[in-house]
């Protein structure tokens, strides 16, 4: 990875606020309001800090890597003396530890998308007692070196599942078949991806009790061809709304759905316009906001270790306004569905609905 990269295709990240940003803006306020219960603050602060970002994948995933990096770039714009550097992991697993070490050798604050490499991160951090860390999507509590956050992925995928359940019953919508089958595709069965699945399944059952939710695990987050082939297989089994929770390989899911004229969902950033007419909506996650927030706090000396749960109620998660699909399909029923799901979202925020989740994803047990 290089330090000179600008965020890829900024139009699709949540930063520019062009599309589907209402959730994010409120999220910004909400996140600012969050207080981590923290023991002590770091001493190394100032405008000339070095911030390293280790991603478990590569830039261009239009997901957490891109948004986190976009947040850091915005930080760089606001504080020109800050040095930022990204450590990408094109080789996956084997790159993580060396990257975290290399980042720790160089930076004062290391931000890591740690949903898969949390254990490694903890063990490396022991070797660098002077460095501070932010663990995205990996809960670390009671460690003075760490600030950490976890998104309630099950909630956002619950909303998507609700939409999928509604869509698959309505054969008036072009491409929807008689059967009530929807699908979920992901790479590996990790707590986070299982959390997504649990929410999605619960959502689909919420709006369509007799739905069958298929799941396929490709074993790789970086192989869209495989994802495409698996999606095709799933489509042939009758699925007509498919959630691909598979990082950069998601383009394979989109393409297969697009070719078969059925429906899919974006994740993390607003992808509604990428495959127009295929993507019902995108589940949004404000990775840029969090990285900006942590970076800014670190510079200003207000950074505190501790754990934050970013849930729907905090506004950190949301869905888009579905303008693209409404325009594409020109059906009134879509508006109904949107309003219905927004209602469910508000119920979620109010705590009136409880979505099942995977405890391991939140560091429980």
């Amino acid at each position, binding site marked *: *990875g*290089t*330090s000179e990269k600008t965020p890829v295709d900024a139009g699709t990240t949540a930063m520019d606020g062009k599309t589907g940003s209402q959730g994010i803006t409120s999220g910004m306020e909400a996140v600012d309001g969050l207080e981590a219960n923290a023991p002590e603050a770091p001493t190394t602060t100032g405008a000339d800090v070095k911030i390293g970002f280790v991603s478990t994948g590569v830039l261009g995933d239009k997901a957490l890597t891109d948004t986190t990096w976009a947040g850091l770039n915005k930080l760089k714009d606001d504080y020109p003396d800050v040095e930022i550097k990204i450590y990408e992991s094109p080789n996956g697993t084997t790159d993580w530890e060396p990257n975290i*070490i*290399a980042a720790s050798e160089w930076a004062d604050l290391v931000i890591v998308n740690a949903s*898969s490499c949390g*254990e490694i991160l903890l063990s490396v951090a022991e070797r660098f007692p002077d460095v501070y860390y932010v663990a995205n999507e990996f809960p670390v509590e009671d460690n003075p070196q760490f600030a950490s956050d976890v998104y309630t992925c099950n909630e956002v995928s619950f909303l998507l599942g609700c939409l999928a359940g509604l869509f698959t019953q309505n054969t008036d919508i072009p491409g929807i078949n008689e059967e009530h089958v929807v699908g979920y595709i992901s790479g590996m*069965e990790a707590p986070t991806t299982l959390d997504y699945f649990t929410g999605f399944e619960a959502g689909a059952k919420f709006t369509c009790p007799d739905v069958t939710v298929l799941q396929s695990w490709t074993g*790789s987050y970086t192989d869209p061809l495989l994802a495409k082939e698996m999606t095709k297989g799933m489509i042939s089994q009758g699925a007509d709304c498919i959630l691909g929770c598979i990082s950069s390989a998601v383009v394979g899911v989109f393409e297969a759905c697009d070719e078969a004229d059925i429906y899919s969902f974006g994740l993390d950033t607003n992808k509604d316009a990428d495959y127009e007419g295929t993507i019902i909506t995108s589940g949004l996650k404000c990775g840029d906001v969090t990285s900006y927030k942590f970076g800014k706090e670190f510079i200003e000396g207000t950074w505190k270790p501790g754990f934050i749960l970013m849930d729907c109620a905090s506004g950190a998660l949301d869905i888009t306004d579905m303008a693209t699909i409404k325009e594409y399909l020109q059906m009134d029923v879509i508006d109904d569905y949107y309003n219905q799901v927004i209602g469910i979202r508000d119920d979620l925020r109010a705590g009136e609905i409880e979505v099942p989740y995977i405890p391991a994803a939140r560091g429980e*047990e």
Partner: protein
Amino acid sequence: MLKVKSEKFETTIRIVLAFVFSFVLFGVVIAICGHNPIDAFYQLFRGGFGSKFNFGSLIEDFIMILTIASAYSLTRRIGYFNLGLEGSFYLGAMFSAAPAFLLPDLPKIVIIPLSLACGFIVAALYGSICGILKAYYNVNEACTTILMNYVAIFFCDFMINNVWVSPGSPIPQTPYVQENAMFAKLPLSPSRASTAIFIAILVYIFVYFLSFRTTFGFKIRNVATNARYSDTVGIKSKRVVLATVMLSCGLGGIAGGLEVLGIYGTFIQNFSQNSAFQGIIACLLVNNNLALVPLSSFFISFTRAGGSGMEYYTGISSALIYTVTPLMILFVSMEKMFDYKRFFGFVRKIFVRNKENNLKA
């Protein structure tokens, strides 16, 4: 006799030229990409030797590459194109980990040899599949070994997802091995370089000794050059081929074991990204000259560690250096291309002709 010597000398010079050419090419590409080649080379060097971490990373790679290069050189000798080392690397790693997390805590002296032996045996058995197909049925090994690699990798995947699951781990991996099974770390922290390096060196010495000092090595060298002759003089060539392939794959398995017990402490999914091919490169780069294998292994480890260093420090993609190394193999194998004598002859000709023309004018 003198003639042979001078020919050897010329070959050496041509090979050196091939290396130089590769590096010049490397520099030119860097310059085209808008970076300073000198700085890049400096960073490459720094990436290999700049800090304890850099040098430690180099040693981490060296352990694996030297072991695999030694393993590969065995099969290379008999003309068996053993691409299956990647698969044995995986299997060896997983099955080395297995006793170390399944059994209760045992003393180091017991558990490490036991683990490595377990990896060795499974990898050797795996190698025997393609070995038998080649030796007894003459099925092209380039095809089968590549296919079997996929089978091995998916099999490991299956095991760590369904059988040897590490509870609560976000990525598929085996449980962590017991404390005593890990090799002690070299004083190169924060890198993960470990004393596994001594095993790697042992493996190399073993292969060297086996190839040139034992009857088995003698048989290998005979089968390599003429299998029908070997049969005639009473060497069971098919069995020698099979045994060599199994041994080679078994040593590949040990490389995997060293990786697990030296670095990770667990077997992780996709833990090697074609790493075994790096060892194969190291062997091919010196044309299977076993005496030079440690040197080339060190060189390849250096380009790997240096490459990522260079990427960290300058932003030039490390893919570039990974592109240049196989190119280097081709250039070195085509050493005749670097016929400096002809080149100088050519230059002289032009020079002389110019002079003559000048004289005429």
